[in-house]
């Protein structure tokens, strides 16, 4: 391992040689073992500052008691451990860092002006740190230590075998309930992100995180630590509770540190299991909803945030403590920097922060992963902020871009041109960076990249025949239920109309009467009477025919072969259907189309760029990609959706105006795309009218820069339109 070169002698040694410094009286020392190596952790409980030193450095620091000048102590160490004792430069470095962490005190009367200055400086630095980290700002509110002390007799029960058993039982039972109701769980997930649910979700989240943080605090307390900070963290402007359980870092045993790290999630799982039981067994819709939210947050937030070691939440600390790599994030960054400096820029004096080869491997892997993840995450956050908080959001997003992208790049440029580390290799460093920059610009700016646009839509058949009732009547019998394939002439529904039957009967008797009257008139040769009677008879015959025809129409038949779709077929028996009502449709399965809605931004793309290929995937059958043969974009700005299935609430892209009950009036104009699907492909599939899915248009490839620029312009345009 390349180590930092530290010279034995320092030009500044005389400045401190005669000082009688010592560790602050309150400093506590813990011995910890990381990856088989001993370390000493110095911590001041009064201000919760930490510093980790090697045994060689501790040999010196431990001897500092303020009674002897530093020079004397150092000479003594040198005599005792000639090869390991730190050199002058290293001593200065360690002492300076200890002083900065407020762990060092001096025996002379302190210069009070300097003390105040130091305090002011520390305060300012803290403030600046908060301002820079404004997306994760922490505001301490009170000191929970006393409270935790009071509830200690209760909370310590959790760490008894009984407590563990209880936890296991509840979590297992809750887990089992959740798994056995998995389908229902998934079904309900669609509505969880709907705007109306967000407030409940947030309340549940606060409740859950409160418990989560209390879990950390209680665990920390259990093993003898103290917790002095409880407050609110503004995570992307969302207030959430937090506690400061950093005391646990000084625990000597690894499993204790791990338990404190994991306690939050443990408690969260416990609550989520209770919620699962409640959810499965409660009929009350409100309780059901709350319980579902709790479960949802506990599982999703754990998977996405807490357990993820790349974010600096619980997973990170678990990871770092489990693999015994303290200060993982910072050191991984240093390791990446070391690799880049050494192998790319050619800095010979670069040194690795790793203590062993395996640690170097971990640091490198973690560093690369965290770097990529960070880039993605920051981009997403910036983008999200820009889109969600109108107007002001743009300013904040601008600030994010400045903080997360421009400042680091600026720092890097300054480092490239002015850093002393690059003194001997600046030319090479500049050349390497220029090389990569050119490659990146070339790739992003000139290499056309595939580009696609997605839009939600539904399946709809082009050829469909409404099945109408031609004669009013009560539905007596449903021969074929919905979704059945029928052939032409198949009996679908039988209606009953007693009035019609009676009319036919009375018409028949009237016909009999007329026939006799005609006979009578013919015999008596009442020519003047005969003609009108004959006419009347003829009319009556026609009318009867008509009534009979109507009677046959009480049997509703399939107009052509296809699929009989009558969504309410099971409930229709006994209902009165007036003439002219459509009771269902027969659909030609070969004529299924996909109708998608595209918002104005997307449409602009579709009109300007050539569509190379497009395909459709349906929900529930996402594995099957259906080729689109041709598509038609309806250019007129529509405002009404053809079906509510395309709206946001049903998983579509478009926000629907809440004032309209039908849920089909859209807030923003849109375009409709009708896509003709590949007949061969859909022949083998079972498709349903209004089944939702997504269409993906593959547009003409375009370099990334151009794509990003368009996206940026669209976001800004949208913002400006809305404000």
């Amino acid at each position, binding site marked *: 391992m390349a180590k930092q070169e530290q010279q034995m002698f320092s*030009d500044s040694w005389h*400045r401190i040689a005669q*000082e009688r410094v010592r560790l602050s009286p309150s400093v506590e020392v813990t011995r910890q073992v990381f990856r088989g190596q001993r370390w000493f952790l110095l911590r001041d409980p009064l201000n919760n500052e930490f510093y980790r030193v090697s045994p060689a450095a501790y040999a010196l620091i431990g001897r500092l008691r303020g009674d002897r000048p530093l020079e004397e102590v150092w000479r003594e160490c040198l005599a005792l451990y000639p*090869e390991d004792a730190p050199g002058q430069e290293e001593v200065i470095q360690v002492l*300076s860092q200890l002083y900065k962490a407020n762990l060092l005190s001096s025996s002379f009367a302190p210069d009070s002006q300097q003390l105040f200055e130091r305090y002011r400086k520390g305060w300012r630095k803290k403030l600046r740190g908060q301002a820079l980290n404004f997306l994760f700002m922490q505001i301490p509110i009170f000191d929970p230590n006393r409270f935790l002390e009071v509830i200690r007799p209760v909370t310590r029960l959790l760490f008894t075998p009984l407590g563990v058993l209880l936890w296991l039982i509840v979590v297992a039972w809750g887990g089992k309930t959740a798994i056995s109701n998995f389908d229902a769980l998934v079904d309900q997930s669609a509505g969880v992100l709907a705007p109306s649910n967000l407030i409940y979700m947030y309340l549940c989240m606060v409740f859950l995180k409160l418990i989560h943080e209390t879990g950390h605090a209680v665990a920390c307390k259990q093993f003898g630590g103290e917790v002095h900070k409880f407050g609110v963290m503004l995570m992307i402007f969302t207030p959430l509770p937090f506690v400061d359980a950093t005391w646990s870092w000084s625990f000597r045993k690894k499993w204790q540190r791990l338990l404190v790290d994991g306690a939050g999630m443990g408690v969260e799982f416990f609550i989520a299991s209770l919620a699962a039981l409640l959810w499965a067994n409660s009929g009350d819709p409100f309780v059901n909803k709350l319980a579902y939210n709790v479960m949802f947050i506990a599982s999703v937030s754990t998977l996405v945030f807490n357990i993820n070691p790349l974010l600096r939440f619980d997973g990170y600390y678990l990871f770092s403590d489990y693999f015994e790599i303290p200060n993982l994030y910072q050191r991984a960054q240093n390791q990446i920097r070391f690799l880049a400096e050494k192998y790319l820029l050619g800095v010979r004096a670069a040194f690795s922060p790793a203590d062993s080869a395996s640690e170097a491997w971990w640091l490198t892997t973690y560093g690369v992963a965290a770097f990529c993840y960070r880039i993605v995450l920051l981009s997403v956050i910036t983008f999200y902020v820009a889109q969600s908080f109108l107007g002001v959001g743009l300013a904040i997003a601008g600030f994010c871009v400045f903080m997360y992208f421009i400042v680091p790049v600026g720092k890097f440029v300054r480092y490239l041109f002015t850093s002393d580390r690059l003194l001997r290799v600046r030319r090479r460093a500049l050349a390497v960076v220029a090389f990569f920059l050119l490659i990146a610009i070339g790739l992003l700016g000139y290499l056309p990249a595939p580009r696609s646009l997605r839009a939600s839509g539904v399946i709809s058949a082009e050829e469909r025949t409404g099945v109408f009732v031609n004669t009013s009547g009560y539905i007596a019998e449903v021969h074929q239920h919905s979704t059945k394939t029928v052939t032409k002439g198949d009996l679908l529904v039988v209606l009953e109309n007693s009035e019609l039957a009676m009319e036919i009967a009375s018409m028949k008797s009237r016909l009999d009467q007329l026939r006799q009257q005609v006979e009578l008139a013919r015999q008596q040769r009442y020519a003047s009477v005969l003609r009108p009677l004959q006419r009347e008879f003829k009319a009556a015959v026609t009318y009867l025919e008509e009534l009979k025809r109507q009677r046959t129409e009480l049997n509703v038949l399939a107009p052509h072969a296809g699929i009989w779709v009558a969504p309410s077929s099971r409930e229709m028996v006994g209902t009165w259907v007036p003439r002219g009502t459509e009771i269902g449709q027969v659909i030609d399965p070969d004529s299924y189309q996909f109708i998608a809605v595209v918002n104005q931004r997307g449409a602009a793309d579709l009109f300007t760029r050539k569509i190379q290929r497009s395909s459709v995937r349906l929900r529930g059958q996402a594995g099957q990609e259906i080729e689109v043969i041709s598509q038609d974009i309806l250019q007129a700005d529509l405002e009404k959706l053809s079906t509510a299935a395309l709206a946001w609430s049903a998983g579509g892209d478009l926000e629907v105006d809440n004032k309209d009950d039908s849920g089909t009036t859209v807030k923003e104009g849109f375009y409709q795309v009708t896509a003709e699907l590949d007949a061969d492909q859909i022949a083998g599939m079972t498709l349903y009218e209004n089944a939702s899915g997504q269409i993906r248009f593959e547009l003409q490839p375009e370099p990334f820069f151009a794509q990003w620029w368009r996206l940026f312009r669209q976001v800004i345009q949208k913002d400006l339109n809305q404000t």
Partner: protein
Amino acid sequence: MITPSQRYYRNAARKTVPVPEGMDRVVLSIIGRWRRRAGVKRRLRREARKVLKISEQRFKGLDEKELSEEVIRLHGDARRGSLDGGGAREAMACLVIICERVLGMTPYEEQVMGALAIKQGLFAEMATGEGKTLTIALGSLILAWSGYPIHVITVNDYLAERDAESLRNFYRFAGVEVGFVAGKMEPDERREAYTCGVVYTTSQELLADYLRDRLKVGEDQAPSQQLVRQLFSSQLGEGGSGQVMRGIHTVIVDEADSVLIDEAVTPLIISRKHKADDFAECCRVAREIAMSLKAGRDFSIDHARNEIQFRTSGEYQIDRQRHRLSPIWRSPDRREELVRQALVAEEFFLRDSHYTILEGKVEIIDEFTGRLMPGRTWKQGLHQAIEAKEGITSTDPTETLASMSFQRFFRMFRHISGVSGTAREAAGELWTLYRLPVVKIPTHRPCLRHIEPMAVFGSSDLKREAIVNEIEELHQQGRPVLVGTRTVEESEILAEMLKERGVACDVLNAVRHKDEADVVARAGKKGAVTIATNMAGRGTDVKIAGPELEIGGMHVILVDPNFSGRIDRQLMGRTARQGDPGSVRAYLSVDDELITRFLPKFMKKRLKLASMAQSVGYQRLALSCIHHAQKASDRLGANQRKSVLKMDTWVDEHLSFVPESRRM
């Protein structure tokens, strides 16, 4: 007995203002440009004219007694702090007349401008030979009347003594005592000198005295703490006994660019001898190990940056021999550090160029002034490595007690002003570091210096031959010649060559400097040839009398270009002073150190070809080469100064657990 307030001021120093970074620095440099604008000069000229008018009208007619009474009145005004605007004008006018009476010289308008600039805390750029000494006297007197301790910094002891002595009567008439502090003085003499209102000394002496005083302060370093302690303790005399200075308040720096810029790089170190340990022995072993290594195979040498880097085979070799070192030095970093130091001593530090051996001791030669710096050592490790190289058994290793960079020291003064003939190149740095705006004072009479075309040669031998030829020719004409060399070695070679030709010459360098004053006095005489290192470059005033002026005045030869253009210009400024005639010729050879160290390869090649062919325009090429190389060297110097500043900030940041006053 001294009063508590005197004691307070003795140890109170201004907190150094940090040099801003980034955007702040840009803003600061814009302010600096504004402060250097031409309007400042015009204002000074108007002021100076008014001063001369007042002196003519009000003071000219006064007799000696009346003048003394005026001095007492103005002195009193100054102590009460009411010497602003009109008061200052009156005071300056009075001083002009005193100067005329006592020294028999009437200050020019330009000198009054310079004095006013000093009063206002500006940096007056006055051409060489314009009478800076008198300007400083005028400026320091008006400041001294306020009662604060005034320090005038000169380049060397000789000049400090010369100026203080020659101006003593002038100062005395104005009611101010003048003293000087030189290297050889004992503490008591120093204390005596520091009680004077104006003290002439060198920056080294001043800083060394300041640091020694600080070491004597004792436990409570903060002046307010001391004051409180003294007020509450019955014994007033205790603490700080043995201090020699009155405190630091105002400093006027002559040749300020040299003092504030060039020499500010190396920090001044106060050290004491301490008992020998085995470190010297380790250095000797390290040298043996180093000598067993081969350049190129085991290590590589970076000449531009004076650095050694080991290759793998070198690291292996050192590892194999590590048992020869004492246990402390066996770990990989430390053993390589030690051997590297030995190689640095071997490769980059040359005897008689960077140091010389006097009475069995390594004495450092100042690269800029060419003078010896007795008692100075390089940093721990390097000095021992050089001793090991020269086979000197270092009897008394030294231990640093205090050190401070000149940069930091001069920033601690409440009032700083400077005078120099060459400041243009450093104006930006003078402003950002010391907040000194440069103002260019015009020359009194047009300059009659004739600069002859540069002579360029392919090798040093050819160049020396030509130089000696020229000297011989001029010597026969009877014109005095001053030959400026960069190194002691070069001066000795030329002296030897002249001796062979039978031309008598004086040599002034780090080794031969005993009779400096006599040599300088002789240098202007008919047919005098004086070979001097840069030590003759600054402040030396070679007086040239009538007959020599008629045949063209003194001729200055620049043997090789210096690392900074300012030093070249200083050397040229030795002749054609105050409107006298004089001539200068610069020589250049392709293997001069400036060229080999700072010129890119392709330019070196072009220069060589051009010098061999003596082609048309090679003069311009040579000039631009020198300019280019000097700029590169200046950049390196600026980087070094930046790192000194960085070191100071580093100390402030990292050693903050040591009270500020003890962080020296």
